[in-house]
């Protein structure tokens, strides 16, 4: 079920009413209800994969119990934890990467003159498999590392893995934060619910107005890039940067807001990444739940930056490339990861990854000239990276980028498609940037309570945003990150 669908518009008030008015007396019933509606939500897309999600959940649940059972035997605990990680990654690998590796191997063999009688399977990628697998894995690893007590409460555990707001596209939650919330009775909190609605509204604006409009132009540009001049191609990259931000951070905002409506707090996933002053800051602000997951469960166990320069470089390359592969089975994602690693490494080696601890223009409204240049340069680097991410192949990406760097860059951009949609896209991006800049020190881009103190004015702004969603909202598109 898509957040931006009529079905969801009907689904959510029903679920909210049952949750708070009928089942509010019993924690177990509330949790059980969350599991049921989460499975309905997921099954709406394809019920055949419900079993797969249940299997992943059950494996991690059982591994937690076994780790507890073998509390006096660390070797056995390690065996159980490793087995659970391997089986879950095996399932993920099968569904997500089997064809990719099979085709890559086939190409390699053909290039050395051997024509294999290779079979590729027509495997459907279950929506959100990377997200819930990683969430389930974090539990068993944390249990093994004694960061959390294993749970016997299977209903709470199933609710933790399948919690519908963040099930298919994150934020990828940690058991240490989310699971304990299912142990305690939730009481309705007015402030949380109101903030949640505000965040949901902002998420819908970013998704339906910015992402869905930008996507129409971006699709035209990327599918026809050979006939478009340099400046038009660059605009295509910029619009994709806003499309993916609107799409993914919009989803996260809706997920976090929905969770608040149900009395659950989940982690922030984006922290105004396009206001970053260097790539290191960008990666602290973009898809935070995934970058911190890789940091905690891959980078640090590999030695992090404690074991000398060589190991640090190796570990950095590993997490960026793995992060690229996590996104999908395509070499474009690998190159995207590598590209970001190459931008990140000089800062890491020069010890400049943490020079920007405060947000930009801290205690001021306007940024300095240097900050503007830093932000624009960082954004430019990010846009080049997004071109790899968006392109259908590595060759296309290099061709696209090489075409940008010509004297045509100073020409008037040739942008195909509807001028009306282009206007909507640019207007909505500007509108979003104004609010996000004003709220850059807050939890999310529309946390306007502190900046607009008059309640009536705030309500007018909410109505305006809803009008904009209804009037400017583009053609309904699925969320980009569902495919990951």
């Amino acid at each position: 079920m898509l957040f931006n669908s009529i079905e969801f518009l009907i689904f959510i008030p029903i679920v909210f009413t049952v949750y708070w008015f009928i089942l509010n007396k019993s924690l177990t019933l509330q949790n059980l209800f969350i599991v049921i509606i989460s499975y309905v939500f997921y099954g709406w897309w394809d019920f055949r994969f419900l079993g797969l999600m249940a299997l992943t959940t059950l494996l991690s649940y059982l591994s937690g119990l076994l780790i507890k059972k073998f509390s006096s035997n660390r070797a056995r605990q390690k065996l159980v934890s490793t087995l659970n990680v391997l089986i879950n990654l095996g399932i993920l690998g099968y569904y997500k990467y089997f064809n990719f590796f099979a085709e890559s191997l086939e190409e390699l063999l053909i290039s050395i003159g051997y024509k294999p009688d290779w079979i590729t399977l027509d495997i459907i990628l279950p929506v959100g498999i990377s997200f819930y697998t990683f969430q389930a894995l974090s539990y068993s690893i944390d249990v093994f590392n004694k960061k959390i007590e294993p749970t016997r409460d299977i209903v709470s555990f199933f609710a933790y893995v399948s919690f519908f707001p963040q099930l298919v596209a994150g934020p990828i939650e940690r058991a240490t934060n989310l699971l304990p919330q299912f142990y305690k009775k939730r009481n309705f909190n007015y402030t949380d619910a109101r903030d949640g609605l505000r965040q949901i509204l902002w998420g819908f604006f970013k998704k339906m107005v910015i992402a869905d409009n930008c996507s129409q132009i971006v699709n035209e540009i990327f599918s026809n890039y050979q006939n478009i001049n340099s400046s038009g191609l660059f605009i295509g990259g910029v619009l994709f940067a806003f499309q993916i931000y609107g799409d993914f951070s919009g989803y996260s905002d809706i997920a976090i807001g929905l969770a608040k409506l149900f009395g659950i707090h989940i982690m922030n996933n984006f922290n105004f990444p396009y206001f970053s002053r260097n790539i290191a800051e960008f990666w602290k602000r973009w898809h935070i739940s995934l970058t911190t997951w890789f940091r905690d469960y891959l980078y640090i166990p590999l030695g992090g930056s404690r074991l000398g320069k060589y190991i640090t470089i190796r570990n950095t390359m590993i997490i960026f490339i793995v992060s690229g592969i996590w996104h999908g089975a395509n070499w474009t994602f690998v190159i995207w990861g590598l590209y970001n690693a190459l931008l990140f490494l000089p800062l890491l080696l020069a010890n400049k990854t943490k020079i920007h601890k405060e947000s930009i223009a801290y205690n001021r409204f306007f940024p300095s000239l240097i900050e503007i240049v830093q932000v624009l340069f960082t954004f430019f680097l990010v846009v080049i990276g997004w071109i790899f991410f968006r392109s259908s192949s590595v060759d296309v990406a290099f061709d696209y980028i090489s075409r940008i760097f010509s004297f045509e860059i100073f020409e008037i951009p040739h942008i195909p498609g509807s001028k009306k949609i282009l206007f909507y896209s640019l207007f909505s991006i500007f509108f979003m940037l104004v609010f996000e800049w004003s709220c850059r020190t807050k939890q999310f881009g529309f946390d306007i309570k502190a900046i607009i103190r008059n309640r009536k004015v705030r309500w007018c702004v909410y109505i305006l945003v809803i009008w904009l969603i209804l009037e400017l909202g583009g053609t309904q598109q699925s969320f980009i990150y569902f495919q990951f």
Partner: protein
Amino acid sequence: MNNFLKELFLFFMLLAISLFMLIGFFYYIFGEISYKIPNDKNILIIGDSHTECSIDDSIFSRSVNISQSGTPYYYSYIKLKKFMSENKSIDTVLLSIHPGVIGKSIDSVWVYNSNNITWKVSSVFNLIHKTDFEPFLFNIDFYLAFLKIPINNIQTLSQLLLSKQFNYKSTNIGAYNKNLNNNLKENLKKINNRKMDDGEIINPSLIQREYIERIIRFCNDRNTTIILISTPVYNPNRFYNPNIVINYLKDINLKIKLSDYSRLPLDDSCFADISHLNYKGAQMFSSYLNTNGIIITNEIQ
């Protein structure tokens, strides 16, 4: 919880009122529009891009062309009712027909396509009566399209208010489209390998058929001559099988007049693509109509 629900209710009430007022404002302004055509015009041309691009009503001087690309017969019917009610001078209606608009495939491309619904509803929203809701009664896109009336008509609204001429010509209802394209070669390249459909029977779109019948009956009831017109196409021997339309019309249990100009010989430079005339072709075809009148090629019982 009670406070939250009260505020939520109040907020949604305010939102609904604001939307109602916004859309109501458009209804009010568009309600002032006149659909009156000059008294010396007696032919109304309705339909899709084929007639939109082919008949220049400044040349075919007795006609008014309100065709628009992508228009299913449902919207042509709505426009027809309004123009007929305001203009007693109309005695002939030309309605575009070709194989592309009668098959089932048009349902997903035009009739029930959400983008097309939004566009079309926005252009005729003030002409839609409650009785016209019937085919879209359970279509959510149709209702959502009404929410898009303000954004899709903001330009028209400003034109109406600035010019103070509340005339249908300032709206998006449809008009002759001077097509400057000359994409015939590219079009031919693209469809080089496409074979013409050899079958002469088409699986019809039910809603298109329903509304073509309504249009014919509506005109018959008012003693208005209704003529279905097929405009010239490029290389008709390859790209146009007239029997598809004729067989389709035979299935409709009404007397129908067909003017099939698909085989009217025109130079390649007259075509925007294989099925649409450009401005040059429109000039020639419109002059031809103006000089020779509308020739009925088939009378179907």
